């Protein structure tokens, strides 16, 4: 179990920092000493060469998700979904390694809460795609709706077209990569991770971002509160080139023209003590 180390400052001595990180994830899945600590205890052994197709045209979202789970349970490591018809909440909560190919478009909340699968979608996705994604890759060939990649924690989330507003709102890790444009309030309250947008960004980019990095290849309508330009270093360029090449999104003119946006960190206050706590110390 991960624990917060004790520091010798006054506030710790007075018992003001008592939190213990004892969540299920910390406890079970990230114990490096335990073999297989990065796999979920009830995950399935799947073979990527074992392939199945699922026509979901007449299925409810619950039936689709149960169907995916049953196929994984029987060892299928590659699953093709046909005729998704922009249904909502498809392919959610997959905590397993898996190649998932979706032929068509998804509605709202597609592929949310996933940890591990590699997903490719030939169509478009609606609002809140890949919300809270934890690892793996998700590549969308067409456009995406608003709140794309909200609160993601890890993995590569790629939309080759344009995305709606509030992209990467509250993102806590991972990479969001957009081939086209993004709407207003992208990166709002971003905490960690990286966002690459090859096209233009709408107004209030990076508003109230705590940390993380945003790279914009086109024009920025305007920056949000506490979002400031940063220096695009050689390391940034190397990383951008590698990532964009990986998903066939590298612009012909390279990445030198990208603008880097970071947090000004003038709004940081989550580590501050409350006024009453300060009085106690003083």
């Amino acid at each position, binding site marked *: 179990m991960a624990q917060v180390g004790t520091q010798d400052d006054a506030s710790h001595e007075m018992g003001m920092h008592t939190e213990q990180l004892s969540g299920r994830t910390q406890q079970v899945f990230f114990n490096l000493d335990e073999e297989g600590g990065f796999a979920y205890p009830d995950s399935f052994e799947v073979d990527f060469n074992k392939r199945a197709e699922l026509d979901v045209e007449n299925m409810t979202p619950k039936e689709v998700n149960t169907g995916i789970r049953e196929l994984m349970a029987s060892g299928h490591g590659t699953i093709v979904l046909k005729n998704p018809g922009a249904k909502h909440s498809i392919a959610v909560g997959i905590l397993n390694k898996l190649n998932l190919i979706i032929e068509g478009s998804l509605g709202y909340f597609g592929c949310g809460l996933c940890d591990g699968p590699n997903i490719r979608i030939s169509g478009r996705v609606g609002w809140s795609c890949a919300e809270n994604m934890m690892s793996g890759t998700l590549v969308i060939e067409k456009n995406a709706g*608003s709140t794309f990649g909200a609160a993601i924690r890890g993995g590569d989330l790629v939309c080759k077209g344009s995305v709606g507003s509030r992209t990467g709102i509250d993102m806590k890790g991972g990479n969001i990569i957009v081939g086209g444009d993004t709407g207003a309030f992208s990166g709002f309250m971003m905490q960690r991770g990286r966002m690459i947008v090859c096209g233009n960004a709408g107004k209030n980019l990076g508003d109230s971002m705590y940390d993380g990095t945003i790279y914009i290849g086109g024009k920025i309508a305007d920056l949000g509160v506490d979002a400031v330009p940063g220096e695009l270093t050689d390391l940034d360029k190397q990383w951008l080139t590698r990532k964009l090449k990986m998903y066939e999104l590298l612009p012909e003119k390279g990445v030198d023209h990208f603008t880097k946006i970071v947090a000004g960190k003038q709004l940081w206050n989550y580590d501050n003590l409350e006024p009453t706590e300060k009085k106690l110390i003083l």
Partner: protein
Amino acid sequence: MCGIAGLIHRDGAAGIGQEMTAMLQALRHRGPDSTGFAIYGDASNGEYVLRFKVAEQEDLASGFKIHDEIKQRRAEVDSRLKSLGVDVTAAEDATEYAYRYRIKFAGDLKKLSDFIEDVEGAEILSIGNGLELIKDLGDATVVSNQYALGGFMGTHGIGHTRMATESDVDIRSAHPYWAYPYNDIAVVHNGQITNYWLMRRQLERQGQRFVSNCDSELLAVYTANNLEQGATLEESMKRSIEEIDGVFTYLVATEDSLGMAKDTMAAKPMVLFESDNLVVLASEEVAIRSIMPQEIDTWDPYDEEVRVWHR
């Protein structure tokens, strides 16, 4: 949460009654309380289509002698139409309390509307050369069957599935709203208008009338007021982004156009498909897929985006 949808065929009439029913039924989960259609048919013969009601659906269950009262109210409306010189060329009972008349009238539509709505329980749903506005309680299939919309042919339309949050579950609070007293203009809205009372009072002082307490009606009255002052539909919709507070995405249809506007926060959804011959919009792509199951390219309009298409 409500659902809105609209479409416009730019290559002639199509079965928009069936198409709008399918789209709105696909959005049923966004609002099952009531459903409304503003659909535009053949406007070539110069007559108006008058849609009006003289009671609410719920009155039938609770009203004392309501069936007799409905007959009396309708007779009074007929009498007043006659006194204004209106030539009723066809009269259909859509339901016991809602009617569809084809009329010939060369006079002042506002005067006509005010005179009819002066009858107890009477409300004009729409007057138009092409517009037919139908709204009632229930989902799209229920309302469509009730008003026999399945075979309706036309060029464009808008519709709404309502989840009542700010006002009652009744026909008066259901969408679309007709932009009284302008023929052929209707509005549907998804969102919440936060400066509703302020703007309502301003518009009432300018002589505009409201029939409900639903904030969405403001958009219809606001549009009518702007058009009265000479603005184009596009100018009115662009102005609304500046002047109306809150979160909203709304659609306006006129005799030959379909318009869409999205607020500055882009907080309410809209998915758009556009081709040379057809434009389809809906709160969710699943509604578009209900009439276009093949793979198509769609996208979300951005914040402050205003679009107007003509047939």
